[in-house]
Every structure is written in structure tokens, then in C-alpha cells.
């Protein structure tokens, strides 16, 4: 059963907008087989990092929200880890509040790094 996820990715700030788009497109394709249309992509743009990562002071932030099978995340995260221009990636189960609490409201499930 698909579950809602949210992924934050920090790209190297030296990437051009087009390159970021290209990478995002490839990544979204991995979690949404139909070419990534079902993925809500929010690119924050360049932002100063609170501390240097790989000696870099800036990063390009992108937030993806989507629903996918948990099994799809394995390849998705693997590809990001292999990409040296991805400084950070964090995928969590989307905290959107599910339908109003029923008798026994399920606690929002927690993340993995």
C-alpha cells in the first residue's frame, strides 16, 4: 500500500537551475512511475547552510511530497546517496494529519534518516 512521504534534498549550490530540474525529474520518476506527475515539488532555491557540509556554505533546497510504495524508496535513496551533488537527503513519512482522529487515533509514524 502506498504511503505519503516527504523528502528534503539539498543540492550543491553550484548547479544550474536546469541541472537541478533534470535531477529532480529523474528522482521523481523513481517514486512515481508515471513520470513524476504525482509528485509535488517545491524548490526553495539557494540558501545558506547553518553549518558547512562538505566545505560548502550554501545549498539548493528542494522538498518533494508524494505517495509511493515503501519499496520504491530503496532505489530512490540509493541513487541520491551515490550523487555527490546531493549534500543531504531526508525522507520522512509525510506528517500531514490524517483524517480527524477516530476513537483510537494512530500516532503519525516516524521517519528514518
Amino acid at each position, binding site marked *: 500500500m502506498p504511503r505519503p512521504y516527504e523528502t528534503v534534498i*539539498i543540492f550543491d549550490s553550484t548547479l544550474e537551475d536546469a541541472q537541478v530540474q533534470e535531477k529532480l525529474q529523474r528522482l521523481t520518476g523513481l517514486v512515481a512511475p508515471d513520470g513524476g506527475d504525482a509528485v509535488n515539488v517545491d524548490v526553495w532555491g539557494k540558501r545558506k547552510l*547553518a*553549518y558547512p557540509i562538505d566545505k560548502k556554505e550554501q*545549498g539548493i533546497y528542494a522538498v518533494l511530497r508524494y505517495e509511493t510504495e515503501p519499496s520504491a524508496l530503496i532505489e530512490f535513496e540509493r541513487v541520491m546517496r551515490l550523487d555527490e551533488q546531493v549534500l*543531504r537527503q*531526508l525522507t*520522512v513519512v509525510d506528517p500531514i494529519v490524517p483524517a480527524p482522529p477516530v476513537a483510537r487515533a494512530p500516532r503519525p509514524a516516524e521517519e528514518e534518516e
Partner: protein
Amino acid sequence: MVMQRRKVCHFCESKVAIDYKEEHLLDRFTNDRGKILPRRVSGTCARHQRQLSQAVKRGRFLALIPYIPDHQR
């Protein structure tokens, strides 16, 4: 005797969800050394404190807030 205002949990009061992407929020609940404020200081309830500490840690990982502020590094 000093009158003390009864502390209420900010999140119970305002009904806002705790989001690790909002660094201003996380900032408010960490001290100037970047440490998470204890409940006795912030007045946060147990449930929200748990969510908050999780959010702060995620925020740190994503370099939205520092593990250690610059002036101490």
C-alpha cells in the same frame, strides 16, 4: 513574592503542527548554544516536546539550524 504566569504549551495553544522545516520555530525552542530548551523552561507539554525534539534534530541534519552556533565553533 513573584507572580508567575502559568506556562502553557505553545503548540497546544496555537494548534500549529510542528514542522522541522520551519527554522524560526525551531530557533525559538533552542537556546543560544543550540540546545533544545527543557520543558520546564519552554512550558511545552510532553507530547509536543517529543515532537519538537524530533523536529529540532531533523532541522539540524538539514542544516536549517546549527548543531553548534558559529560563535562557539
